[in-house]
């Protein structure tokens, strides 16, 4: 049976620096949750606290509603995949994967069977006799994954496991991790600073900043409805425009910005706070004829740069000296310096809170 994880009001300090400022979240059994945030936001620290490598100053970690603060790391039945893979350099692939089973004193016949299954599961058949230094980065990461899953852990922990791999390999191993996790139904906590990775792999994403949780939501919700300027900016590309709230008009609200007055969505969660607008570049659509459009904001800008990105064309244009980015289909033809109108659906103009 899969395990739930609860983190209640956890505080962690290193010297005088408080790296976790009362973190709380709950992960359902079998859920795949990603902790996403920039370097130094505390995401690895929380992972290490869950694994038992670090003790929190305050707060509790619970597995299936049982407090595990005083349980040693070797008794928690978690399995961690490290950024550096952390394979045992003196042992072969087979021995690396077998290590956890040896420590658990699993009978040797069963050990052999389970190691062979794990090797097959991560597509490393035939490489059992190799030492880690004889493997590529992707293969090493798969050994780390096999070593983690072979012990049937209650919780799988990943600490930026793909950051040393090239983009193509990252995508492939990412998919493999997700497939293995789904097949085994293990509760998984995954730490990354790569928003694409977080969105593509997780059931839920926890966005962290400066030792606090900023938002926890599904990948779609966190991308479509970021709650703060930080989340909007950190997850995906976004035009963040300073704004002042105006009056509500039905489902929308009038918002004053340096690029004009716009109608925006998603404003009810804002309470007495400085706000900004988030507009995703793909939500700006060039319009050829100026015509009245229902539920659309129209802005006019002068194209400064058109950058071909392969799968799309990125247009950078100025509106009242404010640089805005729009992503349009790659075959769109436009000259730099041209003035053009862009339509933005009202429901795609999002009001987000400012942290400062």
């Amino acid at each position, binding site marked *: 049976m899969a395990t739930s994880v609860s983190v209640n009001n956890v505080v962690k300090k290193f010297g005088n620096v408080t790296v976790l400022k009362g973190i709380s979240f709950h992960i359902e059994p079998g859920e795949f949750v990603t902790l996403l945030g920039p370097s130094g936001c505390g995401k690895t620290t929380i992972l290490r606290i869950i694994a038992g490598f670090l003790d929190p100053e305050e707060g509790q970690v619970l597995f299936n509603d049982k407090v595990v603060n005083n349980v040693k790391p070797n008794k928690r039945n978690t399995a*961690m995949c*490290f950024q550096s893979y*952390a394979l045992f350099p003196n042992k072969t692939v087979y021995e690396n994967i077998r290590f956890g089973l040896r420590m658990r004193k699993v009978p040797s016949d069963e050990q052999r069977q389970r190691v062979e299954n794990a090797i097959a599961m991560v597509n490393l058949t035939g490489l059992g006799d190799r030492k880690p230094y004889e493997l590529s980065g992707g293969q090493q990461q798969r050994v780390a994954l096999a070593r983690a899953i072979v012990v049937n852990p209650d919780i799988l922990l990943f600490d930026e496991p793909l950051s040393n791999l090239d983009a193509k390999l990252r995508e492939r191993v990412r998919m493999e991790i997700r497939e293995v996790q789904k097949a085994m139904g293990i509760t998984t906590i995954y730490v990354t600073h790569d928003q694409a990775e977080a969105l593509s792999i997780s059931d839920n994403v926890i966005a962290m900043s400066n030792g606090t949780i900023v938002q926890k939501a599904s990948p779609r919700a966190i991308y479509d409805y970021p709650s703060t300027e930080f989340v909007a900016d950190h997850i995906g590309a976004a035009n963040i425009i300073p704004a002042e709230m105006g009056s509500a008009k039905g489902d929308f609200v009038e918002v004053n910005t340096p690029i004009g007055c716009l109608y925006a969505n998603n404003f009810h969660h804002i309470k007495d706070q400085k706000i900004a607008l988030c507009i995703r570049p793909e939500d700006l659509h060039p319009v050829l004829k100026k015509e009245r459009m229902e539920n659309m904001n129209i802005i006019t800008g002068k194209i400064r740069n058109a950058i071909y990105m392969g799968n799309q064309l990125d247009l950078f244009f100025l509106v009242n000296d404010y640089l805005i980015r729009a992503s349009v289909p790659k075959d769109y033809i436009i000259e730099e310096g041209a003035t053009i109108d862009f339509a933005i659906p009202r429901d795609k103009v999002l009001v987000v809170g400012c942290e400062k």
Partner: protein
Amino acid sequence: MMKKGKRFEWGYLLLIPGIGYILLFIIMSTYVMIMQSLGYYNYTGESGFSLQFWGEVFDQQFLDSLLYSLKIGIGSSMISIVICYPFVLILQKTKGKRILLSIMKTPMFIPALVGSFLIINIIDYHGIVNELLVFLRIIEEPLRLRNDKYGIGVLMIQVWKNVPFQMLIMSSAIESIRKDVVDAARNLGANIFSIIRHIILPLTLPSALIAVTLVFIGTFNDFAVSNTAGPLYPNSLSSLMLRNANVFGEWNLSACIGTMMMITTILLVSIYTLIAKRLEKLD
């Protein structure tokens, strides 16, 4: 087509000081020693090939000295590493590690002869150790630790002198083990003893081997400590060699002893290496 001749690389000339030193002082002196053991380079009398000295060298005195030197060499290098390993492991988690390490390094900066006399003062018949043991009624009479026939005093001094040296090697070896590798082992269910057995020992074995080998070479060939604190008989091979050359003027016999010391050292270092490789494979 004209063949291009290999150009002389002038940069190789920069190697002369290093290679010249090795050639002159190591290879040449070893060559002279071996040739001297075969009757050449005689300071007195005629020089010429002879196996006479090799026939004479293997007497009871030489064999006793060889056994004694082996005992001191193997004993002190092994005892030192056994003391050093747990100490360094504990030290890794200790606050004030650097200060402790600095204090522990002190014996390294004291010349062997001075160190030998310092320890003799403590372990002598009426030294602090014996006085304390008698005072505590652990023993009735003081023990003979200096110039004893088993070489216990020499072993104690060699261990005192060499533990810090091995500590330096071993602490950097243990520090070089990545923390996440140890964390991975803990995470997979290993307790502290399993981590030492499966991770730390195998990963530091090459360094331990170097530490043991270097101490063995030093202690097997030691002269100063054995001469001050060692037994009256047998003597260390170095003492025997010196006496043959200086007292009896038997330079050729001394050369045979020197050659044997070298051969024994190389042989034992090779055995150590072999054992280490086997252990590595076994793991």
